[in-house]
């Protein structure tokens, strides 16, 4: 997005390109420094391997996990279990939060009903109410998906409400004066105008529910990448914890990139109006 904005601003494109290149170097450099520092610290054994396993050990563990899996279940199955929970929750959140959010933005009475509830539970730490969800929905996937759903709902809902409130009133008025009915106004004006912000909401929601994943899989799970990290902590298998965290970090970045790609395809006009 940022790069789009920059290329749009009418500066010297050659200069812009060079600036981007330098920034890329800094990013790569940061990671190189982190890796070198990690390597040196473990090389000189400043901390015990339980506190900080060496990069080569983490790599070996990664290949071992790829080959044998964890707890008799392959890494891919763990990832699949986690992503099934995550995407079901996100789909559910999209299906409910988008319409409710748009309606709330549209009709202040609906907002009056829903908004305070969302504002109340939104800042609550998930672990605070997770036990209740388990009591109500059981220890299976249902309670986990609902926890992730609740985490994802608020950002999407709030993004929708704010998107509607930001629509330029003139667009709606001119459409109406040209004879558009309520339905046309909604699908031709309101929805497209809100899409960019809805996408931002979805990306935030993904991030929030991904951070909740480990909490969700902490209780009574036997699969999932979050559970793997949690179970490894029982025996202080810090190499497995590192592998889990790195996998989660990389998949998180990849999925966010995927969402950004979708955003560019669907909301191709963003930044052009």
């Amino acid at each position, binding site marked *: 997005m940022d790069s789009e904005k920059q290329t749009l601003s009418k500066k010297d494109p050659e200069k812009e390109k060079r600036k981007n290149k330098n920034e890329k170097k800094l990013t790569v450099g940061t990671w190189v420094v982190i890796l070198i520092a990690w390597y040196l610290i473990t090389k000189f054994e400043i901390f015990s391997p339980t506190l900080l396993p060496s990069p080569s050990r983490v790599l070996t563990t990664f290949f071992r996990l790829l080959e044998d899996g964890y707890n008799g279940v392959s890494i891919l199955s763990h990832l699949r279990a986690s992503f099934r929970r995550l995407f079901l929750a996100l789909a559910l959140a999209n299906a409910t939060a988008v319409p409710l959010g748009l309606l709330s933005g549209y009709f202040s009475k609906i907002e009056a009903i829903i908004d305070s509830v969302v504002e109340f539970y939104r800042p609550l730490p998930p672990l605070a109410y997770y036990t209740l969800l388990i009591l109500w929905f059981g220890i299976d996937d249902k309670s986990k998906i609902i926890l992730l759903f609740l985490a994802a709902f608020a950002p999407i809902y709030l993004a929708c409400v704010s998107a509607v409130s930001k629509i330029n009133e003139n667009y709606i008025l001119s459409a109406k004066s040209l004879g558009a009915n309520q339905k046309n106004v909604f699908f031709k004006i309101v929805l497209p105008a809100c899409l960019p912000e809805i996408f931002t909401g979805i990306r935030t929601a993904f991030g929030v529910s991904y951070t909740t994943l480990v909490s969700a899989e902490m209780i*009574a799970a036997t699969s999932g990448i979050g559970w793997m990290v949690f179970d490894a902590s*029982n025996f202080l298998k810090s190499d497995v914890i590192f592998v889990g965290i790195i996998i989660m970090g990389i998949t998180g970045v990849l999925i966010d990139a995927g969402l950004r790609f979708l955003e560019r395809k669907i909301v191709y006009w963003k930044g052009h109006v």
Partner: protein
Amino acid sequence: MSYKLTKIILLIFLIGVIIVSFTACSNNSNQTSDSLPEEINFGILRVPNDETIAMVEGFFDKYFTEKGIKCNYIVFDSGAEANQALASGSIDFATMGNVNAVTSLARDLGVEMIWIHEVLGDIEALAVKEDSGINKIEDLAGERVAVPFASTCHYVLLNALKNVGIEDQVQLLDMKTTEIVAAWQRGDIKAAYLWQPTLGEVLKTGKVLISSKEMAEKGYITANVEVVRKEFSNRYPDLVTSFINMLSEAADIYREDPEKAAAIVAKKLEITPEEALKQMRGSSWHTREEQLSPDFFGETGNPGHFATIMKETSDFLQEQDSIDDSPSQEEFNEYVNPLYIEKSLGKSEG
């Protein structure tokens, strides 16, 4: 110009990282060796044991606070959490199941085992719902059993399942004891291996299939033990001896008057004295002299049976892929250290 700038920034970053990591390690070695620490951090379990009696009766004040040492207590649900705290150096002493104590050694946390709080018997058991139709361990095939992973219960349960050859047909769920009670009451699980006081909760609608006492008779002995960071015990050996004295004095209350001891811990654990007494009878407490017998610690230079139990537990954990390497018998002989009990009895010249 900007290429140069990049290089400079990278260099500053690298130097910064190196300085930070070196000051971090010099801080550790820079401690002055004064005679007493300012504070001691104890990791404890909420169970009816000698340590709980000592806390309620104010023995910590007598042995430590009056010497000007502040005592902090950190409650853990299981020894797995205590190990994490030990690894980071946040606590000095920790109570944990011996399964976690094996992990402490295997992960090289720099601790040693100095005391056996209690050898676990009926206090830990495999409970099944009354109406579940499960009457023997073999019936558990195809069922789900909840258990706190990496605990003594987990270890005993795995062995119980393995002995009848159904370890691959039972799905184990990792839950904390309080979560097990919740899931039990909802009807999500029909079987769970857990410890008191939560075991008492599920037994209100359940029965015992097998207890750690029966499994101990088959050789799968488990116990709650005390470990201390070696850095602490090397610097303050007298305080470790005081700690043993204190636990021994607290346990004497139970030995002399079980009802009184039960009333003491009942208040702290928020259970009835009758319940507390029943739970305390579910494990066996041993005097310092008994702990130095060949059955447990043995004597310095002449290791007892408990080191062998720890090694067997360790080999099992390695088989389960829970730890990478099982420490050798010699390492366990050194790890299970009778020195402070000997000092407490005035037996050691050191």
